[in-house]
């Protein structure tokens, strides 16, 4: 990482590592897709509660979603600072992105704990299993991203990031934006749509 841009020959003109990141993200789509498919298949199939409507708190999660979206904005700024060779900007924006990501994770931890206290567990019902597995793996992706962001910020503080090494920041940015987009999908499906799912004994409209 963080050495001069390789002037190596590539058939398409695209850098190898950028191509690798794109292909990897394509692969990761299938990973999240399968977890989402499991959730969708099991919607409404939980034998016992608590059911989404008892647990899901859309207002709260809207805040954390907003925070994550803002972190993507911060990431864009970080890349921009790198390309402009703004050393302080690089470090600050990278750290700010990581900070917002950490806030998101904080919300997730709070939420997981709150749900657990309300009786939603991995083994309790299918909603618990699918919810925690899907959002858990997403959270793990965010956490890895935060570690990467901090590592990059350290490199930035040492002066090793700049227009020559903007690709490294761009790759991190691609990953971070992907993780954000996956969250948008999860938020839409599990919260905005699925969040109103009730158990079998509840009549529609009541």
């Amino acid at each position, binding site marked *: 990482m963080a050495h001069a841009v390789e002037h190596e020959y590539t058939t*398409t003109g695209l850098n190898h590592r950028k*191509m690798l990141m794109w292909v*990897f993200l394509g692969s990761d789509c299938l990973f999240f897709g399968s977890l989402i498919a*499991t959730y969708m298949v099991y919607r409404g199939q939980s034998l016992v509660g608590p059911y989404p409507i008892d647990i899901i708190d859309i207002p709260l999660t809207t805040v954390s979603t907003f925070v994550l979206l803002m972190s993507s904005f911060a990431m864009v700024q970080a890349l921009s600072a790198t390309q402009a060779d703004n050393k302080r900007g690089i470090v600050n924006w990278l750290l700010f992105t990581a900070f917002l990501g950490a806030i998101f994770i904080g919300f997730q931890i709070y939420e997981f704990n709150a749900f657990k206290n309300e009786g939603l567990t*991995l083994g309790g019902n*299918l909603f618990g299993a699918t919810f925690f597995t899907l959002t858990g793996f997403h959270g793990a992706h965010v956490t890895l991203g935060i570690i990467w962001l901090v590592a990059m910020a350290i490199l930035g503080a040492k002066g090793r990031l700049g227009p020559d090494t903007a690709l490294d920041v761009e790759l991190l940015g691609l990953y971070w934006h992907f993780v954000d987009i996956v969250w948008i999908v999860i938020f839409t499906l599990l919260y905005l749509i699925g969040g109103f799912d009730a158990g079998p004994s509840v009549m529609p409209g009541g």
Partner: protein
Amino acid sequence: MATITSVIPRPTSYAGIWGWMTTVDHKRIAVLYGVTAFIFMLIAGIEAGVIRMQLASADNDLIAPGAYNQMFTMHATTMVFMVIMPLSVSFFNFVIPLAIGARDVAFPRLNALSFWIFLFGGILMHVSFVVGQVPDAGWFSYANLSEKPFSADRGLDYWAISLLVMGTSSVAGGLNFVVTIINLRAPGMSLMRMPVFVWMTLITSLLLILAFPVITVGLIELVMDRNFGTHFFVPSGGGDPVLWQHLFWVFGHPEVYILILPPMGVVSEVLPTFSRKPLFGYPFVIFSGIVIGIMGWAVWSHHMFTVGLGPVANSVFTITTMLIAVPTGVKIFNWIGTLWKGSIEFTTAMMFALGFVALFIVGGLSGVSHAVSPSDFQQQDTYYIVAHIHYVLFGGSIFGIFAGTYYWWPKITGKMLNETLGRLHFWLLFIGMNLTFFPMHFLGMNGMPRRIYTYSAEFGWEYMNQLASLGYVVLFIAFLVFIHNVFYSRNSRRVSHDPWDAPGVEWSIASPPPPYNFAEVPQILGRDHYWIVKENAEAAGTPITEPEPLVDPNSIHMPSPSYWPIFTAVGVALIGGGLLSHYALSFVGGAIAMLGAIAWSNEPTTAPSDHH
């Protein structure tokens, strides 16, 4: 982390065991994959032998039912994930950079990582034998037999976790080869000038990276059910066992194309070489490979015709499966077209390629009868399916891989495998294969289900089973002949850089190739580039008799060896191993893997101490 290299210096040479452990050279990694996979093949072959000995007579009691279930589970799991796939990857590794005029793959250290993770994952799977808790629910481990309380010991955990570990290796490899093939082709090698083997590798690599995540999720959900109390596939908690089947087969069907497309690519290289004419219908062969890669995602539930999905679903998958026979047929016709009006030389490589075509036709046809769901209702889960599987995977993939072995052996080693022994190997394998697996078509139609450790004499299955078990003995001897050939040929005389007068650019350099492959990156003149080069040289009155001259390796910028790949792989393997023993070990493994990844990314591709 760079300070670690002052404690343990970054390796710089190829010498000794340390040289092999730290290699990032695709040619060496190919050898590592090939040897490892071959050893696993011998193990899986012994497992097959136990199966055949048990089934050789009715009401046999050579082996207990539990052990028998372990045998067929491990035989198939090993053959699919630890033999055919890594053998194909061995060829990807050796051939692809050479065939596209590159000096290595796009990510040499990632390449090494893939191998080491595969090795450790395969070992982890076999540790199950050491601890006496061996997977025994079949190679696709249907839920909910795979769940507790029905599979109470750790066998299924070994199965799932080892596959998860090996899956990361496959995805990493797939990613590497996609970037390599798209981005490292020599100037002049447009996509439609790429050798067919390169195309098939590209499609396979795309299938790898898209299919493995699906089974990864399935395996994670299974492990969570078994160990963390979830009910993804557990009926008592609302789970549906059929979801496992969907997740498995959405992966599983592209997986079988992953298993067959590379050998089809090999055959597409060998047939033209020994017919002395170009592949017939190149664009159609390529296009049919692409179509198979795409349509392979639309047929998965033909493995589930008897699960009760209903007539609408069964109809859809019947039609899609029937349609996928068409591009497969197109390839076969084009292979025959390559032979037509050619000048065929029966080297061992060619015989295996021809054997592939002949046997794959049988396997493909039995597949067509499976596609028709009403008839599949009788065939499913019987020996008819076992026959189909082995015709396409043994007669298909393994024959294709042997064709590639004999073909590229002189390029890898500078010597040829003995042709007489090779012919003997071929005929024994061909006869043995047919003797073992053709009777199984009849056994299936005569009502013998698969995965049964014994059967009653009253059904008249004994005779066919004896034939099949006799066939195994022939196959066993065939493998002994091959092993003998490998050792016998070590002292044979060196051959030229281009013993077959072949079309691929890999034949233009020395055998074995120098570390840097090409002294000068070639300018590709067309499909079958080296044939064009040789023709042009002949026409100019200066025929080519020598390979590209060697140059001082130090004058060429090559990636340096590194110990971070094997180090990181140890971490990944420990994550898996920890899940099977003490969770603390997983955290240690995670830390090691993360440390390895960070150190690796801080390490330049080429060490500053290395020249240039």
